[in-house]
């Protein structure tokens, strides 16, 4: 199948949000998506708070990878892969692998010492794929989130 992996443009953001919602729905969390197309346009293109790559098949966006920089106090600047999504009907066609490779290349181009992301504990397929590409799964680090309610509780 023919496809192009390229940097996303502002006009791709509606398709990117569609994919974000598709992933949220797969994770049973449709209502959690609070951002809008205009947020992605502003944060990604006016503020440059992230970089997005898309898999373009004959003019249609069928996959995306969204990354940004983090800062490790051990290694310095790192690349964080927030989401990598391929439309369900297009899985197994090589788009995911190509996006994954593009992200690692982006890390390399930016001379970071690490590319990182998270994986669900139950997603053994993905974990195996990551390990086969040389990544390490850190099972003993847990993610902690404090949402707006928690934040407010600590302000008063």
């Amino acid at each position: 199948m023919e496809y192009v992996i390229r940097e996303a443009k502002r006009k791709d953001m509606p398709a990117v949000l569609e994919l974000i919602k598709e992933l949220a729905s797969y994770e049973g969390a449709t209502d959690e998506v609070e951002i809008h197309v205009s947020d992605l346009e502003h944060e990604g293109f006016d503020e440059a708070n992230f970089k997005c790559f898309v898999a373009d098949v004959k003019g249609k966006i069928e996959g995306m990878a969204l990354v940004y920089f983090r800062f490790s106090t051990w290694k310095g600047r790192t690349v964080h892969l927030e989401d990598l999504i391929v439309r369900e009907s297009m899985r197994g066609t090589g788009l995911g692998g190509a996006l994954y490779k593009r992200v690692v290349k982006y890390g390399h181009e930016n001379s970071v010492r690490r590319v990182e992301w998270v994986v669900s504990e139950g997603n053994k397929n993905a974990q195996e794929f990551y390990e086969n590409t040389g990544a390490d799964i850190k099972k003993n680090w847990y993610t902690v989130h404090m949402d707006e309610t928690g934040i407010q509780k600590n302000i008063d």
Partner: protein
Amino acid sequence: MEFTIRKASQEDMTAVLELIQELAEFEKEPDAVIISAEDLKRDGFGENPSFTCFVAEAAGKIEGMALCYFRYSTWKGKTVHLEDLVVRENMRGKGLGNALYKRVIQFAKEEGVKRTEWVVLEWNTHARDFYNRSGATVFTDWCTVQMEEEAMDKFLAKSR
């Protein structure tokens, strides 16, 4: 005890690196820190800083620090990530850690983000209890994945 929580300056980076090293030792990774005070000075200040650092100062000495930066959630938008919060070992239990923690959450509030996040080691149950009590949620079903420089090079060479 009297102390001040304030934004770090470039001059504080040597003390901040000392604290980073102390935390790495606590986490049983004494050789993991490869950045220098110069890196911290370059990356944390100037026009496009990669992080914001707060310090706890007592009697003119830096005794604790919290380092954070922005991330981007595709569900919630901009978030604040707390990378490190360290208090010098002989200064624990005096309220510095709590004050730094509050300062970071206040920073998140000032910036209008919908989430503050960080990671915790599985065995650090003391910290996990503290986080839960303060209104945060610890997710035990998400694993961190890291591909280090050497693996990146190898992967890119192989899949060229």
